[in-house]
């Protein structure tokens, strides 16, 4: 029984009871539980196997990201954003760069915009691939689908490494563009990865989507109504699985997303199965965007020459930059007072806000369903705790 504001510690907590008088079993899942995707804890009260209460407890990975951002120069926060959602450092970089560009009124060159779209869609591909793999792992398909997913993810990480120097902590984007241009042969390599990907997705779907065990396990589990999803501020694939057509790439058309033809897959029931399927379908659309972006990639500069790396001081003002990260709407809110450090640095993490309705999804379900519901929310604790 731990909360941050517990007035008095009770050494022997009083047992709680269900309506019919049966004693509830309180289980503390985590923080080191293989299903919790990092250091995350759920205090679950169980009536038999049914969940009657669930309290998420987090903060184990808190590292003061926002305050650190206010204490350092603008560029120094860029490598820290990699560590928010460490699966998707490219999109984190982009969201932060977008916020600063809005704040300082920087124009990004054409080629850099294309590079950003390419890296962001590759990030979405590898995030969704590994998420589906992890979800299968949570369901008890030990290893096999996850290893297939990681095999494909590794190809994309190799692309990231040859572009930015690091597999996961890319630190690739800069205010007004990108850090380095594509190395020789990168575009062909990316093209071959993109060309080979549909075959893998076909195999992956054959492996999973018509599997009766998987369907029995996921359909109707953790259903999220569109009303609740909207009211709770859920974004990303989770919101679209509930049937709400809201994709920032379409709604906001940030960057150059209005130039690409792609569809937004929507779910119907908002259950775990729909969330999984929406992600599988989104990967196909990402491939479409990648094909168009790689085909249209123009020549030119990749960095706005007027933007300085050092002594970067934007005019006083505020800006909110948001993008459709693989997990949902990732936003950075910055206030500048004209000095070299931001006056306020705020992150809107999709994982945290998608996690807020965990109890609503889990009430009345079995304890085993809690694991896959949490898996289908797609959280990364680096982003939840910041």
């Amino acid at each position, binding site marked *: 029984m731990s909360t941050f504001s517990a007035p008095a510690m009770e050494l022997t907590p009083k047992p709680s009871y269900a309506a019919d008088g049966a004693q509830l079993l309180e289980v503390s899942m985590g923080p080191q539980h293989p299903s919790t995707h990092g250091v995350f804890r759920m205090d679950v009260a169980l009536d038999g196997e049914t969940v009657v209460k669930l309290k998420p407890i987090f903060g184990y990975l808190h590292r003061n990201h926002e305050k650190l951002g206010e204490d350092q120069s603008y560029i120094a926060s860029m*490598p820290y954003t990699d560590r928010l959602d460490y699966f998707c450092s490219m999109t984190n970089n982009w969201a932060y760069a977008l916020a600063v560009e809005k704040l300082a009124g920087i124009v990004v060159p054409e080629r850099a915009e294309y590079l950003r779209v390419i890296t962001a869609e590759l990030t979405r591909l590898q995030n969704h691939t590994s998420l589906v793999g992890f979800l299968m792992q949570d369901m008890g398909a030990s290893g096999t689908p996850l290893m297939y997913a990681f095999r494909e993810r590794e190809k994309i990480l190799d692309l990231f490494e040859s572009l930015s120097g690091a597999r996961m902590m890319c630190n690739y984007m800069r205010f007004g563009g990108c850090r380095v241009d594509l190395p020789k042969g990168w575009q062909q390599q990316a093209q071959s990865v993109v060309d080979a990907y549909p075959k893998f997705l076909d195999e992956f779907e054959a*492996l999973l989507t018509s599997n*009766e065990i998987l369907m029995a396990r996921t359909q109707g589990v953790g259903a999220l109504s569109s009303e609740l999803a909207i009211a709770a501020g859920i974004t990303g694939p989770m919101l679209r699985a509930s049937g709400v057509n809201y994709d920032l790439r379409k709604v906001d058309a940030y960057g150059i997303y209005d130039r690409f033809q792609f569809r937004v897959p929507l779910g119907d029931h908002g259950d775990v199965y729909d969330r999984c399927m929406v992600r599988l379908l989104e990967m196909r659309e990402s491939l479409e965007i990648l094909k168009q972006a790689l085909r249209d990639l123009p020549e030119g500069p990749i960095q706005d020459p007027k933007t300085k790396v050092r002594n970067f001081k934007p005019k006083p003002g505020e800006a909110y930059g948001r993008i459709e990260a693989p997990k949902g709407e990732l936003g950075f809110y910055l206030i500048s007072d004209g000095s070299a450090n931001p006056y306020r640095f705020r992150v809107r993490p999709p994982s945290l806000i998608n996690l807020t309705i965990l109890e609503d999804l889990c009430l009345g379900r079995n304890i085993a369903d809690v694991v896959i519901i949490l898996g289908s929310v797609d959280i990364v604790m680096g982003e939840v705790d910041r």
Partner: protein
Amino acid sequence: MLGVGVLKGLVETARNFFGSYVSEERLTTLQYPEETSPRIEASRSFPFLVYDGSDWQQGMRCVSCQICEKECPPKCIFIEKSPDKKPDAVGKMQFYPAKFDIDISVCMSCQICVEVCPFDAIKMDVDYNLSATNRFSDLLLDKERLSKSNEYYHEIHPTEAASVDADLAAAREKAAPKPAAPATAAVQTAGTGGAAS
């Protein structure tokens, strides 16, 4: 019919299992300590200091301007300026670091120090076999352990090093018309001239 989906999935598993015997695509694992994957040129681990020529103290490019120390996000660089001056890579009299430490247990390999360095003195290494028995002294690298030759830099990042050398040669040519210190300039060109051309 119930069970068809499971069988379809098992066919995929079988295809991957038997495919791993014949197809490179499906067998991507390596026997790590014996085999390693080919190194990607752009990859980076931790920073090192470049020196020209054969003497690391004489040829060190760092002029102790302390910009990297100031810009480093986790503040893992510690520099102490020298009391006297010596000629730098382009033959100009400059300070040098009396002390230059990088705590690589703090460093997060973001390479912002490399980006802000105006003298091309600090670059990213690629060595990742960095296990140490003492977590304090072994991971706090001093000036001597950080210094690596320009030839080593060429070896690990050939494309990048070539363009850096071209830039430095251009800067040296620009500085050359003034006959400032012919003796020291000769020392410097002996160090980097060959690599640049």
